């Protein structure tokens, strides 16, 4: 089929549009959305499917909205080698017209329903619906991979090309084979269903049969065992019976010889008694001999040890004397040493006394100096105590004086200065307040003749000549204030002078100078006192020494000092009396000390030489004492050893005495029982007795030997032992037999043979069923595998033409490594690129779309030579491909046009700008 022209009128949004399509090659129809691209495809479907009188909603839907017009479609196409023009108008002025031009140019026309039926028939005859659906890709369908196996033209094409007939007729067989196979096997080839169960039953039955057989084998073994035991038992019983006869015979013989043996036993008994008696006598003799030897030996030892004791005792005594002498010598030397020590002590006391005297002399000098110094300290202290003026006080007094001068100057400047002079004789009296006649003068109450006075009036001055005149001079308001300041300064100076107990400022300055002198004197005296008392108070030491030397014991040495002079001269202007200096009542009184004559130094040197000599003598005596003590210790040690030796010798001697006494006592006791001379006689008699009995024994043994009595007893004992052993063996056999028979009886009750036979019967039945199933299962498997293999081979061959084309097209896009594999429906199942083989579901969306397009182009190519070819229509595809792929896919779409009619509808013309030789049609709205 080829589409040539399509005309739409009043079809959805299209008022009137005709599209001409080249019969071969690729056509790209470009138009924006809603301009009716898809209507072209829809119109083609509707014109064949719906008669003009159809009331279908699909027809009503194509009428433009709100317009009462008739939708109309005209299609011009080639179908089965004939040119068809087919026009249909629905809803209003309905009509259908079909015109067909045969290849030879004949023309036929139909109208109305006939036209519709004829068109429908011709379409169905020439267009395979599967192929048509496969190659027409609607909007949004571009990703769907085609499954074109049922498309007849494709089947025809691949069959023609591969030479392999289509397998369709044997599909029921394939299904039946698979069904049969799955009755016995899983798809993975493991037994299943009844077949698998049967195998399990066989295993269980085999186990049961094996166990039953084993149990029965044990029974059979028991039977054989019991048979053998019975035979052995019979044999053994026979031997035992035979043996018991021998035993009986031996018993009879033994009875006869027992009497002789009895007699021999009696004689043996007597012989034993005699031998014991002899042994007793021999023992007595040996004991007596031993006693005699002991007494002799102990007597000798006793004498020797007593002698040794005496010697040791003498040595000990001599040693004691030596100790005595050494101790006497030691006592003499001790006495000598004591004398020498006493002498040393005497001389030491003398030297000590002389040295005390020398020390006392020194201390007395020091004490006199100290008294002098302390008197100076006391005097200086008295002066200092009396002076209350210091630097600060003098400064304060100076300030106060300055303030007075200052205040007076201010007063003088601020108040009237009145000069009063008595010119005549008339008394002139002066009075008033706040008057100042200068610092050295008092205001007179009257003036002498020619006397005058100059006054500063700060208050009120009354100058009167009594009875004549009275002049009052009164100072202004300020004068009182100035006057008060002067008074305040004067009062302040007086307070300070009173506090310092001085008359005036110069007196204070004189006192300050005297205080400084007294301080210097005091410091110097105290330094001297500290140096004199640095070794302690000499007075205490003097008291100790005088006491020790026996001078003026218990008397007061010092009296009060005699003078009571004031320590400070009176100072002019001083306002009070000086206090008196009080002496120290605790001071030592040297007046009463009886000072001995100073020591002669030669006397002390003589005494020291004596002391040295005495000490040398003492050392000599001590050396002699050490020697004497060593000699005495040596003597005592030797004496101790000798005494110990003597004591040991004594103990040994006493022990030997006791031992001798005991031996003698034992010998006497033994002799009391049997005299020495009888001991040997008794032994000889006993020996004789023994010999006699032994002779008797020899005689009877000869009789025993002659009768063979000993052998009979031995033989009987042996025979009895054998009989016991045989009986034991027989009992063991009998027990084993009983046990085995007991087991057999039990197994008989259990019906083990029946159990075994039943188990084997069951096993045979189950095995037979299994083998039957297995034969069927194996047959099913063989058929399944054989058929499967052949089908796979056929499938490979069958799909080859399509596969080859898909790969050829695909390589132009992806390169030479591109390969595909098809499944039973001839759909692409896997794709390989650069060695990587993937299921199509695993590919990217773009790759899936490209593969879907390539597959359709391949199908179109494959069917293009046949009558059944149809156009390939893509409505809006390649939306998933990138630019590089678009170029390759465009080239592919362009080339595909060489073999058939390819129609592409798109609103994105740039996707298809690389399609070579394509016809571009632009739909305008």
């Amino acid at each position, binding site marked *: 089929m080829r589409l040539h022209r399509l005309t739409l009128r009043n079809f959805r949004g299209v008022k009137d549009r005709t599209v001409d399509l080249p019969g071969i090659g690729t056509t790209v129809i470009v138009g924006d959305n809603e301009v009716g691209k898809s209507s072209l495809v829809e119109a083609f479907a509707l014109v064949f499917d719906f008669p003009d009188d159809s009331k279908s909603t699909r027809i009503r839907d194509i009428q433009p909205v709100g317009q009462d017009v008739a939708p109309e479609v005209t299609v011009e196409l080639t179908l089965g080698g004939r040119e068809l023009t087919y026009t249909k108008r629905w809803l209003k002025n309905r009509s259908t017209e079909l015109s067909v031009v045969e290849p030879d140019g004949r023309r036929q026309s139909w109208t109305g329903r006939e036209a519709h039926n004829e068109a429908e028939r011709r379409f169905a005859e020439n267009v395979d619906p599967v192929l048509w659906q496969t190659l027409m890709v609607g909007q949004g369908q571009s990703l769907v991979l085609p499954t074109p196996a049922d498309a007849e033209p494709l089947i025809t094409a691949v069959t023609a090309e591969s030479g392999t007939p289509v397998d369709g007729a044997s599909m029921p067989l394939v299904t039946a084979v698979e069904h049969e196979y799955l009755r016995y096997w899983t798809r993975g080839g493991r037994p299943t269903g009844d077949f698998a169960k049967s195998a399990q039953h066989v295993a269980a039955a085999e186990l049961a049969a094996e166990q039953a057989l084993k149990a029965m084998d044990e029974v059979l073994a028991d039977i054989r065992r019991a048979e053998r035991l019975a035979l052995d038992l019979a044999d053994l019983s026979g031997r035992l019976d035979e043996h018991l006869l021998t035993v009986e015979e031996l018993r009879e013989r033994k009875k006869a010889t027992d009497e002789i043996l009895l007699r021999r036993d009696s004689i043996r008994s007597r012989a034993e008694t005699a031998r014991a008696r002899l042994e007793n006598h021999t023992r007595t003799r040996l004991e007596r001999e031993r006693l005699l030897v002991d007494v002799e030996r102990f007597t000798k030892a006793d004498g020797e040890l007593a002698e040794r004791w005496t010697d040791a005792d003498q040595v000990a005594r001599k040693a004691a004397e030596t100790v005595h002498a050494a101790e006497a010598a030691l006592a003499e030397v001790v006495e000598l040493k004591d004398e020498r020590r006493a002498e040393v002590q005497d001389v030491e006391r003398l030297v000590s006394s002389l040295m005390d005297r020398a020390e006392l002399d020194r201390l007395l000098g020091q004490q006199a100096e100290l008294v002098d110094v302390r008197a100076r300290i006391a005097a200086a202290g008295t002066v200092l105590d009396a002076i209350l003026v210091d630097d600060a006080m003098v400064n304060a007094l100076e300030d106060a004086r300055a303030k007075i001068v200052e205040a007076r100057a201010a007063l003088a400047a601020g108040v009237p200065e009145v000069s009063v002079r008595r010119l005549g004789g008339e008394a002139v009296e002066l009075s008033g307040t706040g008057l100042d006649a200068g610092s050295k003068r008092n205001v007179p109450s009257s003036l002498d003749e020619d006397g005058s006075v100059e006054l500063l009036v700060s208050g009120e001055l009354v100058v009167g000549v009594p009875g004549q005149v009275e002049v009052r001079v009164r100072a202004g308001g300020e004068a009182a204030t100035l006057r008060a300041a002067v008074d305040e300064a004067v009062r302040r100076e007086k307070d300070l002078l009173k506090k310092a107990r001085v008359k005036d400022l110069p007196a204070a300055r004189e006192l300050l100078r005297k205080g400084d002198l007294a301080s210097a004197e005091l410091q110097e005296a105290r330094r001297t006192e500290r140096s004199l008392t640095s070794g302690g108070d000499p007075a205490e030491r003097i008291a100790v020494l005088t006491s020790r030397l026996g001078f003026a014991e218990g008397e007061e040495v010092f009296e009060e000092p005699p003078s009571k002079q004031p320590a400070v001269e009176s100072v002019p202007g001083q306002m009070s009396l000086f206090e008196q200096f009080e002496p120290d009542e605790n001071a030592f009184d040297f007046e009463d000390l009886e000072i001995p004559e100073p020591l002669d130094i030669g006397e002390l040197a003589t005494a020291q030489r004596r002391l040295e000599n005495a000490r040398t003598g003492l050392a000599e005596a001590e050396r002699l004492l050490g020697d004497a003590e060593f000699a005495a210790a040596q003597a005592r040690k030797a004496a101790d050893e000798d005494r110990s030796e003597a004591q040991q010798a004594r103990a040994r001697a006493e022990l030997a005495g006791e031992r001798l006494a005991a031996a003698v006592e034992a010998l006497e006791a033994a002799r009391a029982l049997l005299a020495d001379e009888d001991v040997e006689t008794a032994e000889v008699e006993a020996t004789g007795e023994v010999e006699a009995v032994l002779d008797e024994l020899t005689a009877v043994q000869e009789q025993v030997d002659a009768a063979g009595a000993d052998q009979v007893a031995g033989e009987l004992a042996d025979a009895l032992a054998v009989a016991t052993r045989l009986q034991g063996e027989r009992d063991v056999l009998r027990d084993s037999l009983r046990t085995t028979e007991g087991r*057999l009886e039990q197994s008989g009750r259990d019906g083990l043979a029946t159990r075994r036979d039943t188990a084997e019967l069951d096993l045979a039945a189950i095995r037979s069923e299994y083998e039957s199933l297995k034969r069927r299962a194996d047959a099913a498997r063989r*058929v399944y595998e054989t058929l499967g293999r052949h089908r796979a081979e056929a499938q490979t061959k069958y799909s080859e033409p399509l596969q080859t084309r898909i790969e050829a097209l695909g390589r132009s896009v992806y390169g030479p490594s591109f390969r595909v594999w098809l499944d039973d429906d001839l759909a692409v199942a896997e794709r390989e690129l650069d060695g990587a083989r993937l299921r199509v579901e695993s590919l990217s969306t773009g790759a899936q779309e490209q593969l879907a397009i390539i597959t359709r182009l391949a199908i179109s190519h494959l069917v293009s030579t046949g009558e059944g070819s149809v156009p390939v229509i893509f409505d809006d595809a390649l939306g998933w491909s990138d630019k590089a792929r678009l170029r390759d896919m465009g080239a592919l779409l362009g080339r595909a046009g060489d073999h058939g009619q390819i129609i592409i509808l798109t609103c994105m013309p740039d996707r298809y700008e690389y399609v070579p030789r394509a016809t571009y049609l632009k739909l305008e709205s």
Partner: protein
Amino acid sequence: MSAGRVSVLNAMNDSITFLHSSDWQLGMMRRFLGPDGQARWAQARLDAVMRIGDVAKDTGAAFVVVTGDVFEHNQVERQTILRACEALKRIEVPVVLLPGNHDALEPGSLWSSAQWSGHAPDHVIVVTDSRPLEILPGVEIVGAPWRSRRPVSDPAAPGYAELKPAPAGTTRILLAHGQLTSLSGGMSDVPTIDQAALEAAVADGRLHYVGLGDRHSTTEVTERIWFSGTQEVTAPEETHPGNVLKVTLGADTIEVEPIRVGAWHMVEHHAELYDEESLTALEDFFAELPEKERTYVRLAADGSLPLPLFSRLDATIDSLGEVFASVERWAKFWTVRPAPDAADLDALQLSGPARAAMEELRQALAGGDEGAGAALTLMHRLARDAG
């Protein structure tokens, strides 16, 4: 040697009639019967014993002797022993049982068990030694019971070796069990019975009848020496099983008559199959067999059949198995093969891979591949059914 009615002139009025049976082998199992067939067959063997009781009544037999292998094994289950005792009660005359190789007087023997002694009817006597037993005045039974399943010498000899000729007026019957040297063909692995010595004993009047057991087919060895055979068939190889012998001894005469008591059949059949006609013949053979539910057929087949016929053979045998007690393909002699020809395959109208697969299987079968035959048959059936 064939069994049959033996007729000897009865010279004396004074005669004794008894029944001789053997090899009951109660408790025996046959794998080829399957569990269901086995149960019915086991019951049939007991039924046959009970029918011996009927025969005894009908014939006026004075007693019944059973010459060995009464039980299949000394260790049969209790149920078998008790049911045997019940069946024995249905025989109203004395019954003398001889232990055989299957139920020898070995240690653990069934005969010395409490199960037996506690249930055995009083009129049943078990021969446990070779001392003569006067079963009736003037009738003496001597027996040679098996004491072990592996005797070291002629198992019948102990029964008569010490015997002097029977006193006048005494009829003496020997019960023994084992194969005859003459019949075993030297193949027996246990000592056999010296037939010549037996005949000598019969000839010199020490014995008047020798009842033998162990051989399941009724067999006349000499006029007075007989194998009674088993009371009910146990294998297809047996020639005359399922009988009891009615023995009538006169002063100088003997009459032995086999009387059928068995109800089952065990048949061996060999079929040559090569075309539809031969297959139909086989089907006819089965159709004509009587008492199918009590019949076991061991079937051997060789030849080759076209695929449709081969499928038919399979189906036929499968359905026969439902009707007969058992139909067994005798594996050792089952060599019939499918022989597919081109016409068979063409008829299926297969093409492409299916046709190729069948062709491959056909060639494999032709090359001797057994598995291919079964596969081809299956595929043929499936294709036919699918088509």
